[in-house]
């Protein structure tokens, strides 16, 4: 299936005393196929071998993927539960002692019960993540609502995919990250990529991107920096951070004005065109150029290429989504595909580059404060009734919607939330405005953290539970295409570590909720219940059995039953998921970033990834090769700006905003706008750029505006 021109039948090399376990990478949404090399005598993972027969990535891996296996038996693994008796040491690595699981569970059950008795059910919270399997994500939602009975659950997808989700839901009525499989990308005629540093963040997409250009197709990239992908773009739209909505509206203006619209498609399959036309009327190339800083010629050329392209794919990522108008940006870029009818057929559509391994699946099945499995709304009585039945509770017992990730920290600071169970996330590095977040964690009455390394967030915990890495458990994840794939177990859990689902089952039993959890003995048991819970929802996984996933090289949701092979191409029948089956072209007036530069803070600060690190760096900063390649953060400054500040390459400067400050080594490069500085966000403690970022939240997705705020640079001594 889906064997394209990049696919080759290649034998794998198996060394003596080794076996290969087929699986996928632990990191980003690409979920590159890989084989883990396991020593047959020690039964330990010792290396990696390409997985040439995985149709999406055909053996390719980025440096994170190649070295991912080094996490499993890493010397920093937490091997036993840790308890800290002296709460004054919170925020440091000090004071932990090893304990038995029994002692840790007893302490957690006692403290959680005390808090709920004294302050109510909702005094507890769960903060989760999506770098783990669907089975774990699903059970975490159930654990919060059934075992703890709290409304306060949310997850790090709010810092990652929430705006893409919000935009897709509004525009299409369904949130599947890509309307087409990745194997279409190299066959399209034009890629319009906005706010994605693809070469560093999703490197294994690049051979398909370059193939478009090799065929004579076009690459248009919108990014404030000349990233490795922008360097080779036919048009690089070098916009000011935070002005995407103006750019997208400006391009829409030209598509309409120059007759590139598909009137029949607009009429039959969309709503909202006339209002939108009115809104973008003023976004002439000159006005768009004034707001975005991109030249009129480039804007006109980009619109002409996209308009003329027989097939085109609009793609975007956190650059456009991590803004306080991220949802609007997503819908505005989707407008381009809708007015030109370039969607709902092979080689044409829209896609977001999912940041985390299971960023897609993890947001669909009930870790979000307002969602239940199958992408059901917790405010929908029918959804509550169905899921309650699967969970064996009465609908009245189902907690109400909670609040978004960042808002949970605010509730911790005002003592509404007093206890936290944190897993699969490191918000002490990854959340915005960290001074507020770290204060919230420190002030908690009781905090549990499950992780396989002692993260910066674990440093605030009273109890740390050792969870397993991805390679010591099995289950499914949903990659950036919307393809459900299988992660396989290659090694037994190291030390006394346990999979998160097992921890939750055992903890639920201690909390007296065993009857809802005790039947779950394996990841496969969780999978069966999870598929049933998703049945009938928009994100229907019922038919995606592990057997079918194995046989078909993955299953694209929705997949409703045993016979259903899944849905690689969305909207093939031109039917969208709104009740009238039409997509919504959205009229979205431009609004500037929450914090514009001024005299005191004249620079625009933007943040992002480097190719060597993943998210908060809790995993990748421990891998020697990756650490060697990028040991510390830095601030990228244009040489003209550096001259104004009289600062040199490699000089350490103070960077500060209204919220915080840090010192960074200067990296001078012409590949950034003169009005913008960039710092990678993978670093902890005083190196975290999120000490400086702003927590201006999108009104719909509650996504913080990581991608732009006002900053100042100061030369030291």
């Amino acid at each position, binding site marked *: 299936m889906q064997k394209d021109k990049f696919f080759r039948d*290649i*034998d*794998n*090399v198996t*060394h003596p005393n080794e076996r290969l376990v087929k699986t996928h990478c632990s990191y980003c949404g690409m979920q590159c196929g890989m084989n883990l090399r396991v020593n047959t005598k020690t039964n330990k993972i010792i*290396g*990696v*071998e*390409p997985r*040439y027969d995985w149709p999406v990535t055909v*053996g*390719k*891996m*980025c*440096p994170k*993927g*190649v*070295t991912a296996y080094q996490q499993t038996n890493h010397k920093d693994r937490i091997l036993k539960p840790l308890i800290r008796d002296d709460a004054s040491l919170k925020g440091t690595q000090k004071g932990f002692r090893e304990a038995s699981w029994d002692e840790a569970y007893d302490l957690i059950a006692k403290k959680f019960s005390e808090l709920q008795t004294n302050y109510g059910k909702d005094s507890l919270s769960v903060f989760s993540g999506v770098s783990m399997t669907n089975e774990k994500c699903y059970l975490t939602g159930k654990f919060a609502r059934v075992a703890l009975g709290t409304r306060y659950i949310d997850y790090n997808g709010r810092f990652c995919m929430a705006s893409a989700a919000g935009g897709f839901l509004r525009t299409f009525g369904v949130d599947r990250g890509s309307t087409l499989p990745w194997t279409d990308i190299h066959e399209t*005629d034009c890629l319009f990529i906005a706010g994605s540093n693809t*070469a*560093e963040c999703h*490197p*294994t*997409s*690049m*051979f398909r991107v*370059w*193939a478009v*250009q*090799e*065929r*004579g*197709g*076009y690459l248009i990239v919108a990014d404030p920096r*000349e*990233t*490795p*992908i922008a*360097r*080779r773009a036919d048009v690089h739209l070098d916009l000011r951070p935070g002005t995407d909505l103006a750019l997208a509206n400006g391009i829409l203006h030209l598509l309409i004005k120059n007759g590139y619209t598909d009137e029949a498609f607009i009429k039959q399959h969309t709503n909202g065109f006339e209002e939108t036309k009115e809104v973008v009327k003023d976004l002439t190339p000159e006005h768009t150029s004034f707001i975005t800083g991109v030249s009129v010629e480039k804007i006109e050329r980009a619109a002409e290429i996209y308009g*003329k*392209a*027989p097939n085109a794919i609009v793609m975007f990522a956190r650059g456009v989504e991590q803004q306080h108008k991220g949802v609007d940006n997503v819908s505005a870029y989707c407008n381009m595909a809708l007015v030109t009818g370039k969607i709902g057929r092979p080689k044409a559509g829209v896609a977001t580059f999912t940041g985390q391994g299971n960023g897609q699946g993890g947001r669909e099945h009930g870790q979000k404060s307002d969602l239940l499995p199958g992408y059901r709304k917790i405010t929908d009585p029918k959804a509550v009734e169905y899921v309650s039945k699967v969970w064996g509770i009465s609908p009245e017992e189902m907690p109400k919607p909670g609040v978004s990730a960042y808002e949970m920290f605010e509730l911790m600071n005002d003592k509404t939330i007093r206890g936290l169970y944190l897993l699969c996330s490191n918000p002490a590095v990854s959340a915005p405005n960290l001074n507020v977040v770290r204060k919230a964690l420190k002030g908690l009455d009781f905090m549990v953290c499950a992780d396989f390394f002692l993260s910066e967030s674990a440093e605030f915990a009273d109890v740390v539970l050792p969870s397993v890495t991805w390679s010591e458990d099995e289950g499914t994840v949903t990659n950036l295409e919307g393809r459900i794939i299988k992660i396989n177990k290659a090694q037994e859990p190291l030390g006394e570590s346990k999979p998160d689902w097992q921890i939750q089952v055992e903890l639920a039993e201690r909390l007296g909720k065993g009857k809802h959890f005790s039947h779950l003995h394996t990841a496969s048991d969780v999978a069966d219940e999870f598929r049933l819970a998703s049945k009938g929802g928009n994100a229907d996984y019922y038919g995606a059995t592990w057997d079918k996933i194995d046989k078909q090289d993955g299953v694209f949701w929705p997949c409703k039953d045993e016979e259903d092979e899944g849905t690689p191409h969305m909207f093939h029948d031109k039917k969208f998921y709104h009740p009238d089956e039409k997509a919504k072209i959205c009229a979205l007036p431009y609004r500037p970033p929450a914090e514009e530069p001024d005299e005191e803070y004249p620079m625009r600060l933007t943040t992002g990834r480097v*190719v*060597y690190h993943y998210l908060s760096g809790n995993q990748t900063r421990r891998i020697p*090769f990756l650490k060697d*390649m990028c040991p510390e953060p830095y601030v990228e400054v244009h*040489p003209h700006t550096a001259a104004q500040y009289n600062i040199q*390459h490699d000089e350490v400067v103070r960077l500060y905003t209204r919220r915080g400050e840090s010192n960074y080594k200067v990296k*001078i*490069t*012409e*590949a950034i706008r003169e009005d913008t500085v960039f710092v990678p966000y993978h670093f902890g403690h005083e190196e975290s750029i999120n000490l400086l970022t702003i927590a201006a939240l999108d009104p719909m997705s509650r996504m913080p505006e990581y991608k732009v705020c006002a900053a100042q640079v100061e030369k030291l001594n």
Partner: protein
Amino acid sequence: MTKRRLFLELENCIGCRSCLAACTQCGGHEQRNRNYVYDVNPLVNRQTMPLMCLHCVDPACARSCPAQAIQIHETGAVLSALTEKCIGCQNCTIACPYGIPKFDEEQNLMYKCDLCIDRTKDDIPPMCASVCPSNTLQWLTEEEIEEKQQRHDLGNDKWVTSMPYLEGETNVKINLPGILEGTTKLF
């Protein structure tokens, strides 16, 4: 069996250095990477390029070796020095026009790319080309390489991205930056 060669398309490089990480994964490489990726002009742009052993047909490293420690495999791969023969003189590191052989100060031994000979002898791509996310490093047949090189030779006496060889004839083939110059646009 079809005989394939390593082919470098330098324009494609995105600087991820996955090739270096993967190099350590070849069973015979003792966890040490054997090639290089350079930032071409780091203060100006993000262009990068790999510098891999080109496996010369008449390799200067082997010719300069007084101990005949550097053997040439029947596939044309120029192997790493035999540890029992290498005398650590470093002649090879000086002789190589591309600066490929590395020197292990502790063991007093040279080591270099052997084109993952335990893979490529069976026509399995070397680790670097297997993982390369941007197709900068590819494992291609003679015909595929010929087709690529013709496509990139504009025949206008101005810009030729593929030359027969650089310093001398090599088993690894290269397309220099500029591969898109001759592309005919679709529309």
